[in-house]
């Protein structure tokens, strides 16, 4: 990551093996090791790791509510 002018701040983002320099002006909170959502060269969000689990929590609730047999995900 580069520091200095916040509008010029960039970072190296690894897209499953392909590394690109991405502008971080819109994610001043981004830190090394974060996952970011990137669109046309700009990070527009830092992925919230706790919120990312919600869909799987919802799935577990559904499984209990519907009394479906537990399936291996």
């Amino acid at each position, binding site marked *: 990551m580069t520091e200095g002018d916040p509008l010029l701040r960039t970072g190296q983002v690894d897209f499953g093996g392909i590394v690109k320099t991405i502008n971080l002006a819109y994610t001043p909170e981004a830190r090394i090791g974060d996952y970011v959502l990137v669109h046309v*060269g700009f990070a527009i969000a830092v992925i919230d790791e706790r919120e990312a689990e919600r869909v799987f929590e919802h*799935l577990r609730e559904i499984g209990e509510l519907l009394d479906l047999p537990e399936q291996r995900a």
Partner: protein
Amino acid sequence: MKYRDEYRDGPAARRFAEAIARLVTRPWTLMEVCGGQTHAIVRYGIDELLPPSVTLVHGPGCPVCVTPVEFVDKAIEIALRPGTILCSFGDMLRVPGSRGDLLGAKARGGDVRFVYSPLDALTIARAEPEREVVFFAVGFETTAPANAMAAYRAKRDGLANFSLLVSHVLVPPAMRAILDGPDNRVQGFLAAGHVCTVMGTREYDPIAARYRVPIVVTGFEPLDILEGVLLCVRQLEQGRAAVENQYSRSVRRGGNAPAQELMSEVFTVIPRRWRGIGTIAESGLGLSAAYAAFDAERRFGAVRAQDDAAGECLSGLVLRGERKPLECPAFATRCTPEHPLGVTMVSSEGACAAYYRYRGVAAAKELVR
């Protein structure tokens, strides 16, 4: 890749589909707004996992598809002028104007370059100060912060040979236009997760309240879309119409504040004509007065609105969710990606292109014409 592969899990997808099937007591029609969602739905067969009483219709969220023909013509005109370089995202190159496309202009000697980011166009402008460099700025709210940054930096650095041909569009006015349509069949929306990552979710509250439609902000992976459908159908079955956020790993209620700040400095809300749909009030972004010097229309002449060519193509109906691609008699026969009749077959985010790519001619043959 993390935050992708686990959202494509087959057994988990079937569990969501089972939960939806048990919930549904009546037929419901939902619209996914974004072309990226449409592609995931068709690619992974999500529509085929759903119970037959839940219908997904595809929305207008394909930026290339809704860019008016007169802007494509203007881009071509600029590209063919001596001393200019026209920079564009790659998916605009094959979009037909009234006489050919940007790829054709390039073949005729126009300097057309496709770029990954608007900042690449700035780099070209710095490297070639004797040429006029124009960036074709199309897209929804997701792309606007990037294009705003290009304009901001050009102004700050006094880059006099750079300008933008702006044809930006906004999602909420298009949703209202669809709901106001006399043939509307949409009862609930899966709103576009990336648009809401930038803008947040507040501007959808009045739409949900006024039209009594549930709006579920939804991501782009199969499990995201299935959870979005489940949340939306649950609201419909319970008679609720609220804004819900399925894509909370990326979307915050207020959106991305620094992005909105620069957008509101660089752009101003204007009426915009949508290809296949018509003019919608307050549905576009143009450069604000402070950035007027960087408006390509000032340098190369104003874009004049023109009517969409009448013809066999139903893309306007497809973009409003009133027809599905397989309901078009020309699909995969007289209209293919190699010989498209309209934009929804050209663009990588277009609904017709998605059906052609993932369902193909076999699907077309099963249809009763």
